[in-house]
């Protein structure tokens, strides 16, 4: 394992706005957090700015985005002012992102093994045989049983769960220090979801990665992550240890938890979230 000091991400007072028409829409407002070797969950409804935070870290936004922060640094590198070439060295190599839907994120006309190999070659000069060896090892690491067979398949020939594990393999073959997983299991069945989570968990623990896990599934985050940020309308309304989620105090977090139908606690009517305009400012 590497012996470098733990990778550390520092975000302080992050604001992201998009110019649409003449007006500026503030998608993220005053978000502050740090990340070490841990699993950090970001939860919230659609449109709350969770994915925008993830994309900001990799600078994947269009030029029209206005990103302001008091601090935005990764391992001492200031991400606000880093040049494009520095970013290319970070993106994929040291910090990578797993997208939501393998169907749209894999190249449909390229064999799976070649796609993963391409990701590796982008940062590591190696011979064809070496690359292939690395890819097969990686496929095995994400628990694909017949790596040689899967290597030669095209994306449409694999199931959703396998596709998602292939995405994970592609991201982890670079051995990044931080992985941002944007709803990596939302498109999957419960049984497959647990397999993918177990794979992620094992790799995070073994390799000492920092993981940012973006999800709208509170139950899942509660059991999978170490720490949780709850976002509402671009702001972090609550930040707490995942185990303490039951004791969440913010009415929004409470409302989200309450509105889940449960097999152990059956109710005639589910409480519906009552939104308070004050949440936007306080």
């Amino acid at each position, binding site marked *: 394992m590497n012996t470098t000091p733990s990778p550390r991400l520092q975000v302080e007072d992050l604001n992201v706005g998009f110019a649409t028409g003449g007006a500026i829409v503030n998608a993220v407002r005053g978000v502050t957090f740090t990340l070490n070797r841990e699993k950090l969950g970001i939860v919230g409804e659609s449109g709350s700015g969770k994915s925008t935070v993830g994309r900001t870290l990799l600078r994947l936004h269009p030029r029209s985005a206005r990103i302001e922060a008091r601090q935005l640094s990764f391992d001492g590198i200031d991400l606000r002012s880093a040049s494009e070439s520095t970013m290319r060295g970070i993106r994929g190599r040291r910090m990578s992102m797993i997208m939501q839907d393998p169907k749209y994120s894999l190249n449909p006309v390229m064999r799976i093994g070649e796609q993963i190999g391409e990701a590796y070659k982008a940062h590591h000069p190696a011979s064809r045989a070496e690359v292939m060896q690395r890819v097969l090892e990686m496929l095995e690491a994400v628990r694909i049983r017949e790596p040689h067979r899967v290597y030669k398949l095209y994306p449409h020939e694999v199931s959703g769960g396998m596709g998602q594990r292939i995405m994970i393999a592609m991201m982890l073959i670079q051995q990044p220090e931080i992985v941002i997983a944007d709803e990596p299991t939302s498109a999957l069945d419960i049984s497959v979801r647990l397999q993918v*989570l177990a794979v992620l968990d094992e790799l995070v623990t073994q390799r000492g990665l920092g993981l940012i896990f973006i999800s709208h599934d509170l139950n899942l985050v509660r059991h999978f992550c170490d720490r949780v940020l709850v976002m509402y309308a671009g702001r972090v309304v609550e930040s707490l240890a995942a185990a303490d989620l039951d004791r969440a105090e913010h009415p929004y977090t409470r409302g989200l938890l309450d509105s889940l139908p449960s*097999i152990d606690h059956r109710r005639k009517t589910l409480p519906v979230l009552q939104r308070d305009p004050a949440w936007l400012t306080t």
Partner: protein
Amino acid sequence: MAIIEVNALNLTFGHGAEANQVLNDVAFEVEKGGSFGLVGESGSGKTTVLRCLAGQYMHWQGRLAIGGQALGGKPDKARCRQVQMVFQDPYGSLHPRHTVYTALAEPLRIHGIGDESQRVDAILDKVGLNAGFRYRYPHQLSGGQRQRVAIARALILEPSILLLDEPTSALDVSVQAEILNLLTALHERDGLTYVLVTHDLGVVAHLCDRVAVMQRGRIVETLAVDDLCAGQAWDPYTRMLLDASRSHELERVSVGEIRTAARPVG
């Protein structure tokens, strides 16, 4: 009396060596006014059963009966009026260039029912929207509002059976609660019969009284939801689903167990 009877339902796609049997001796009954859940992983055939009931597939074998009348051949208008379906994705199931009014009035025109305007207003009111939504396009609605319109479209023909294909899985949890409450209210008020497909046992516990668990085109277990919640399921796959929706505890449900319980292909 059972309003829906499904007996020895078999369905195969493809021919000869390519043949793929997707439903295998599926059998269940739903009482009038009951609410029946179908759960299982993707590809287990849950939605296919709904499509057979809705008349979207016609080459099945076995016996399907609705209200004591055996189904077969082309679905007629009377059956379409009696059985309506709500789809998973409210973003895909509404025509992007039709207003809410056009979408809701179309089934009325097909079935030659008058009083379009009043009926549209009444049904919008029933699903918690108002007449102000009549001339909106789908892109001007939120996800929850779209699913309400899709439910209104199914209800406007006053069906007795509603087939629900994952009606809330594309929605946020906060919106899911609203739609589930609406479905509960409609169920109680109008005595509708539901067949609900989902992979979320929490939704089943909230809305259904009986549930069948499907795996690879077969029903592996049928039981009352009360028994399910009391932990009386015996099939390993059902137990795995139960554990998974209770806790997501990775340590307890080890991957090896999932493998054997889920028996994935490939």
